[in-house]
């Protein structure tokens, strides 16, 4: 029978010793299995070539296509670690994407900002694109501020608090562009999603930067400890002097920022921004990545690297469906099965039981 140590609120309590490694090993194993499957059944899966000065190959695609989920997963990890959840990331992606696409569309500028914007767009394109990116990111952070305020000041349940923006956010995005779907042709802005540096997709470089920054900030400062403390037991954290409210606030802002960057990348990848489609259901993918990566939805210990691996896992899964030419309407079934398999692999409970099933069998055999 099961031994279950009683943490508060019935959480399984992590044991001492290398929790990071322990959390990572199973998602990595699952990812490896999926890759091995592909190597066996998809010709040329591992090959990476240089096409038009950029690296090309299935593996590169996974990183590139997965960059927005990886970004979202970084922000989402912090939110979930505090015991919250952010459903609005998809909508925030849409806001950032649409705002950026609008601000490089002359008609929109004419109508909303005035001629100076267009003048700048024409004469000092790079500088203007800097402004555009900054504006989009500021908007995303503001969205995070809104979420943070509802959760930490008004004490509204995170799922409902962020549902408000999830519902309204796409409307806000459409309002910005007045429902139009703008397309642009600006290599400088498209560089975010399509560009490469030494053949490496720029979006992947951004993800790496953000991830390193997040890991650095949480592990080199006391932020990580405090986030975990808040998520694990917020009453105790408050009475130990942890600025619980500020921490909650901050994680939603970071999540908003990550979503904003993801939105920019996603839209620049296709050089347009459709408020209805960018980031649709992205929140589910992001939460999936986080949970697969070993962070519990109930908050507490978090594993940013695990979340990134989780994001890669879900993207690999999606790309496998394309590569294996699974019929689109049926593609969901293998996807479901893989998720369950990954879960089982990850569950210590399952490993113990699977093992336990083997043992009595041996014993019975011995008796016979």
């Amino acid at each position, binding site marked *: 029978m099961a031994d279950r140590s009683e943490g508060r609120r019935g959480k399984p309590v992590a044991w001492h010793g290398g929790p990071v490694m322990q959390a990572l090993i199973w998602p990595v194993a699952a990812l490896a299995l999926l890759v091995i499957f592909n190597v066996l059944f998809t010709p040329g899966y591992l090959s990476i070539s240089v096409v038009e000065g950029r690296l090309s190959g299935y593996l590169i695609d996974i990183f590139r296509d997965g960059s927005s989920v990886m970004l979202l997963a970084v922000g989402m990890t912090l939110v979930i670690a505090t015991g919250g959840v952010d459903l609005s990331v998809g909508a925030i992606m849409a806001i950032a994407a649409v705002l950026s696409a609008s601000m490089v569309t002359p008609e929109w500028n004419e109508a909303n900002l005035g001629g100076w914007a267009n003048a700048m767009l024409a004469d000092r394109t790079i500088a203007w694109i800097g402004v555009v990116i900054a504006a989009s990111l500021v908007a995303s952070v503001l969205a995070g501020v809104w979420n943070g305020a509802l959760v930490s000041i008004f*004490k509204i349940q995170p799922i409902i608090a962020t549902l408000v923006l999830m519902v309204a956010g796409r409307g806000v995005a459409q309002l910005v562009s007045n429902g139009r779907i703008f397309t642009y042709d600006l290599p400088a802005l498209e560089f975010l999603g399509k560009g490469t540096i030494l053949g490496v997709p720029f979006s992947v470089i951004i993800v790496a930067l953000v991830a390193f920054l997040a890991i650095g900030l949480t592990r080199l400062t006391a932020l990580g400890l405090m986030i975990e403390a808040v998520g694990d037991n917020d009453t105790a954290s408050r009475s130990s002097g942890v600025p619980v409210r500020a921490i909650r606030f901050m994680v939603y802002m970071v999540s908003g920022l990550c979503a904003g960057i993801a939105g920019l990348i996603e839209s620049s990848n296709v050089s347009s921004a459709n408020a209805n489609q960018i980031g649709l259901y992205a929140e589910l993918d992001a939460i999936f990545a986080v949970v697969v990566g070993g962070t519990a939805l109930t908050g507490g210990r978090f594993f940013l690297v695990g979340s990134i691996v989780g994001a890669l896992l879900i993207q690999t899964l999606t790309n496998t469906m394309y590569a294996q030419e699974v019929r689109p309407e*049926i593609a969901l079934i293998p996807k479901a099965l893989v998720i369950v398999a990954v879960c089982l692999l990850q*569950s210590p409970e399952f490993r113990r039981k699977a093992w336990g099933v083997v043992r009595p069998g041996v014993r019975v055999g011995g008796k016979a």
Partner: protein
Amino acid sequence: MSGKDLLRRVTPGREHIPIIATLAVLVLMFSFGAIRHADRNFASLYNIISLFRGGAVIGIAAIGSTFVILSKGIDLSVGAVIALASTMTAKLVAEEIAPGVAGPGLHPALVLPLVVFLGLAFGAAQGALIHWFALPPFLVTLAGMFLARGLAFAVHPQSVTADHPMIGRLQDIAIPLGDRFDLPLIVLVLLASFAIAVLAARFVPVCRDVYAVGGDEASARLMGVNIARVKIGVYALGGVMGALAGVVATIDTGAGSPAEYVGYELDAIAAVVIGGTLLTGGTGFVFGTLLGMLILGLIRLIIDNEGTLSSWWTNISAGVLLFLFIALQSLLTGVAGKRGK
């Protein structure tokens, strides 16, 4: 019984404050709509019935979600289970049983229990994975969502009309209200389900176990609660209510489609949470979920009555109304809570 005792019995306790606040805001919002759209028959009986009828699918499914959330779990498979059940129902009653055998398919009297049973099995399987292998409910039910959706497409790739004479007869079952309106079957199922669930939550011992597990699973275990029964049970109930919702949806609309009911799991969760149930488990009321369902419907009704909103203003107003609602709700709860202390 002393007079004081009696008074305590009839006056709602502190734990009822959230639900009373919710009810108050619901009434407030309805009055707002009624005044603003007086010329559009906002407060008509027809609209009120439609509110129930339009919310029924979510409402029925949300009963399952309520118990799941009370046990501190979450069920993301609801929408896909509704779609699967609805597609299966339509397909099984409409299509010939075997090639060459003409006429309609299986009799609804057979199909309906079969589909609900499959829902039960589906939910129980999810619960079993969650309980026995200590898997996170979010992932298991997300996989369940993909699986059910995929199966629905495998059953039939597009929408099917539930062509069976019996379905038509079921559609005609209704309680007449006056000479022009009637309560259709789906609303009756909705109300009956809620009546049963509200009573069960209060009076059936195992339902109190659900609250206990949600409040503190480790303690509940130490207190001798059968955790397996509770956890597998709530997801099984989730499956049953999802399937039931799918079945009645098919009866009500006469069709099923594998591509429909996308995102209903979130609507169901929203109805539950708006109804005052905490996602942290252990606290909440089934009746609140009915209010939550009505509030979501009311938001939609107000938007429809505006009639001039562009697509984006529709989104924004839905968000703003939702926000206004929860803000008012938490304000009222806060004020009443303070006085209660």
